[in-house]
C-alpha cells in the first residue's frame, strides 16, 4: 500500500467508517465514474435525510420537555474559528472609563461631538485606469459629501496639505495594481491617523444580480464586530467618514462587517412590506364552515433587502500615527508576518 493511500484511509469520516464496518464498498473505491457518482449521491442524500431526522427528533424532545415543564437539553454549539479565538486582553470593555477618556481625547472626537460635517476627498494613485474610476464612481454614490479630485502628478503629502486647507475631514486614496484597484488608504484630517487597507473582491453594482440604485438620502451606518482597542479605533475611523444623521426615510444602510480581521463592505436598501400570507389550516376544522374565514389571506410584515453595491473586502495592513508619511512616519500598528503564527488570533 502506498503512503498516500494509507493517509487517505486515515481521513475517513464517520459515514465511511460505518460503511466499512457494514462491509459495503466505499464510493471512492468504485472505479466506474458513473457508478461512483451515483453511489456517492445516494450516500449524500441519506446523510441529509438522517440529519433532518435528527433535527426533528431534537425539536420534538425540546417541545415535550417544555410541555412537561422541564429544561430542554442545551443545544450543541459548533466549534468555529471565531468562538475558539485566542484570548485577547485588548478587548474593549464598555464600562472602562479610561477607554472613554481616551476616545474623548482622540482625533475623531470632533466628529462625534458634531463639530463639523464630514467632507471626503477621493483620489487615486498616479495614472489610474478605468476599473479604478468605475470603483470611485460607485464610492461617490455611497458616501455623502465626497469629492473626486484627479491625482495628477502631485505628491500625497501635497494633497494632504491641500485637503487640510479646504476643510476636508478625511481623504481616501485608491491604489491600483495591474489595472485593478488593490489598496485603500484612508487618511483622517487634519491630524491623522492613516490606515492602509488591502482591497480585494471588488464587485461593482453592475455585476450584482438584482441590484438597486441608491438614492441620495443619508445612509445608516452599521459597524459590526470591531471589538478590540485597535478595532474600535478603525471602526471610529470608518464612522467619521459618514455623516452622523441618517435619513431613515431613505432606508439605505452601509455595513462594515468585521469577521476574522477581514472587513466586508456592503450597501443595501431595505424595505418592510406587508405581504399576504396564507393562514395555516388546522386538521380538526377542515370541512367546517368556519374555515372559510380562516382561509382568507393574512397580512404580515416582511423585511426585504436589496443590495445596491459596490461590494468589497478590506484587510488592515497598517495604522499610522499622524497623516501620511511613509518616510518619517510612526506606526500605531503594523501587520507583521510573525503575527500570523496562529489561525485563531485576530486583531480587530
Amino acid at each position, binding site marked *: 500500500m502506498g503512503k498516500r493511500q494509507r493517509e487517505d484511509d486515515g481521513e475517513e469520516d464517520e459515514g465511511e467508517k460505518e460503511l466499512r464496518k457494514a462491509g459495503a464498498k466505499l464510493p471512492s473505491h468504485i472505479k466506474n465514474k458513473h457508478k461512483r457518482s451515483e453511489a456517492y449521491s445516494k450516500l449524500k442524500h441519506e446523510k441529509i435525510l438522517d440529519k433532518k431526522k435528527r433535527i426533528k427528533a431534537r425539536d420534538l424532545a425540546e417541545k415535550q420537555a417544555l410541555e412537561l415543564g422541564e429544561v430542554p437539553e442545551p443545544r450543541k454549539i459548533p466549534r468555529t474559528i471565531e468562538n475558539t479565538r485566542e484570548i485577547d486582553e485588548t478587548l474593549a470593555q464598555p464600562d472602562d472609563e*479610561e477607554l472613554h477618556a*481616551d476616545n474623548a481625547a482622540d482625533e475623531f472626537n470632533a466628529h462625534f461631538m458634531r463639530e463639523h460635517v464630514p467632507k471626503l476627498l477621493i483620489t487615486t494613485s498616479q495614472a489610474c485606469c478605468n476599473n479604478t474610476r468605475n470603483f470611485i464612481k460607485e464610492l461617490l454614490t455611497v458616501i455623502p459629501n465626497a469629492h473626486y479630485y484627479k491625482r495628477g502628478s502631485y505628491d500625497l503629502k501635497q494633497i494632504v496639505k491641500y485637503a487640510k486647507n479646504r476643510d476636508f475631514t478625511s481623504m481616501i486614496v485608491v491604489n491600483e495594481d495591474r489595472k485593478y484597484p488593490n489598496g485603500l488608504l484612508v487618511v483622517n484630517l487634519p491630524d491623522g491617523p492613516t490606515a492602509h487597507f488591502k482591497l480585494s473582491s471588488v464587485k461593482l453594482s453592475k455585476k450584482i444580480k438584482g441590484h438597486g440604485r441608491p438614492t441620495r438620502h443619508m445612509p445608516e451606518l452599521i459597524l459590526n464586530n470591531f471589538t478590540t482597542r485597535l478595532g474600535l479605533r478603525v471602526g471610529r475611523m470608518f464612522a467619521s467618514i459618514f455623516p452622523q444623521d441618517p435619513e431613515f426615510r431613505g432606508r439605505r444602510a452601509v455595513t462594515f462587517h468585521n469577521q476574522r480581521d477581514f472587513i466586508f463592505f456592503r450597501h443595501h436598501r431595505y424595505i418592510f412590506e406587508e405581504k399576504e400570507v396564507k393562514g395555516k389550516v388546522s386538521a380538526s376544522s377542515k370541512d367546517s364552515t368556519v374555515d372559510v374565514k380562516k382561509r382568507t389571506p393574512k397580512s404580515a410584515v416582511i423585511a426585504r433587502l436589496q443590495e445596491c453595491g459596490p461590494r468589497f473586502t478590506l484587510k488592515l495592513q497598517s495604522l499610522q*500615527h499622524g497623516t501620511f508619511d511613509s518616510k*518619517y512616519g510612526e*506606526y*500605531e*500598528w*503594523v501587520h507583521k508576518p510573525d503575527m500570523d503564527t496562529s489561525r485563531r488570533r485576530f486583531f480587530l
Partner: protein
Amino acid sequence: MPRTSQVELTGCPPFRALCFDNLGLIKVVEAQPDKGAPQVVARWGHPDSQQAAVCTSLSGDTYPSLALARKNGRVEIIDPASGAHRMELGVPTKVDIPNDRSRGQEDASDVVCGLHLFKESSSGGKSVLTCTEKGVAAIQRVPDQIKGEATDSELLIANWSISESGCVLCLRVDTTEQHAAFGGRGLDVNLWDVEKCSRLWTAKSPRRDNLGLIAPPYVTSLTFLSNEDHRKLVVGTGHHQVRLYDVGGQRRPVLAFNFGESPIRALAADADGYSVYVGTGAGDLACFDMRTGQNLGAFKGKVAGSIRSVVRHPTLPIIASCGLDRYLRIHHSKTRQLLASVFLKQQLVSMVFDMSALPQEPAKTDATVPQEKSAFDDGRDDLDNSILHKVKSSKERKHTTFTESKSLGVSKKPRKSKSSELQDY
C-alpha cells in the same frame, strides 16, 4: 484539536516600572516574585489629554525623585514610591540676557522636548535641566517644599540657547552629570558642558552620498555608550541610521549603519559597554554590537507599533520597551525572548525602572532578596551557556571570533585599525 489557549509566557524576575502615557496617567507595573506575570498595581492621576507626558527623568541617587514634563509645559517632581506630588515648575522658553530687556519673549507654542533631573548636589537641593524644541536650555533649582513659593527667575541657575534654527528633539546627560548631548531636526549632535554652559563639541555632517547629496541632520534619539565614558555617543537618526561618534577622535561618525526603513525612535545602551538596543517607528527592536555594527538579533513577540522608549534594567538582564501599541514588553536582554507583556490601554510615551521600591514583602529579610536574584542569574547563565553551546556546535569558527572580540575590551578604546578604516566613511 486546535490550540485554543495562549502560550504561557515564561515569568520574569521581580521589578517595578512606571509607565507614562498620552493621557497623563502614570501606571505602576510590578512583577512580584511569587505572583508570576507583572500587573498594574497603581494608577496615578486623572485622564486629561492636556496633561499628556512628554518626557521623564529619574534621578540616580539613593532616594530618587522623578521629573515628569507634561504637554502643558509644566514639570512635576514626583515621589516614585508613592506618587506624591512634590513640586511643580515652569519651563523657561526664552533666553535671559542680563543687559538686554528687548530680546526674548516667552513663547507659548514652544514645547519641552528633553528633561534631566540631577542628583542631589553637595550644597543641597536638586536641579533640573530642561530643553524646549526651539532650543532654549535651562537649569533650574528645585525648591524645597518648606520654603514655599519662589519666583521662576529666582530658581533659574543657568539659561542658554542651543541653536537658533532647527528643532531640538532629544537630550541626554551622562552618568557624571557634567556633559549633556542635544540633537534634533536640523541640528546635529552637540555636546555641552553643563556647568560652564559652553559647547564642547559638534558633529560634522556625513560626507556626500553617491548622488552628491547631504541628508539634513535629523537626530531622533541619543545615548552614551558606556557609563564610564562620556566620549562615545550613539545616535539614532530619522534616516533610519545608527551612528557612533567618538568625541575624542573626530567629528564624523566612527561607525554608521542602517537599520530598517523607518526612523529610529529609541536607543538604550547596555551596561556591558558595547551593545545597544534600537527601536524604530515601525516596531522593530534589535540589539547591535557597536564594536562591529553587527546586528546581534531582533526582539520579537507582541511588537506591533512604534517604540517610544527602550530601557535596560540597571541590574537584571531585562529590557523593557513601550510605545504606540499600548503594550509594555519585557524581554530578556541576552536570549531576546519575550518574558512578559502588559496591556496598558493608552499610547505610552516613556517608562522608567524604579529601583528604590522593589516589589517585596516588607517582612522579608534582606538575605532572601539576593538569593532570589542569584537564582535568576543562575538561570540566565544556564541560558547563556546553552546559547554558547549551540554556537559552538554549529559554527565553531564564529564562536572563537566572538570570544576574541569579547576579550579585547573595546569599550574603553576603539580598535585603531577599525577606526582608520572607517574614517573614509
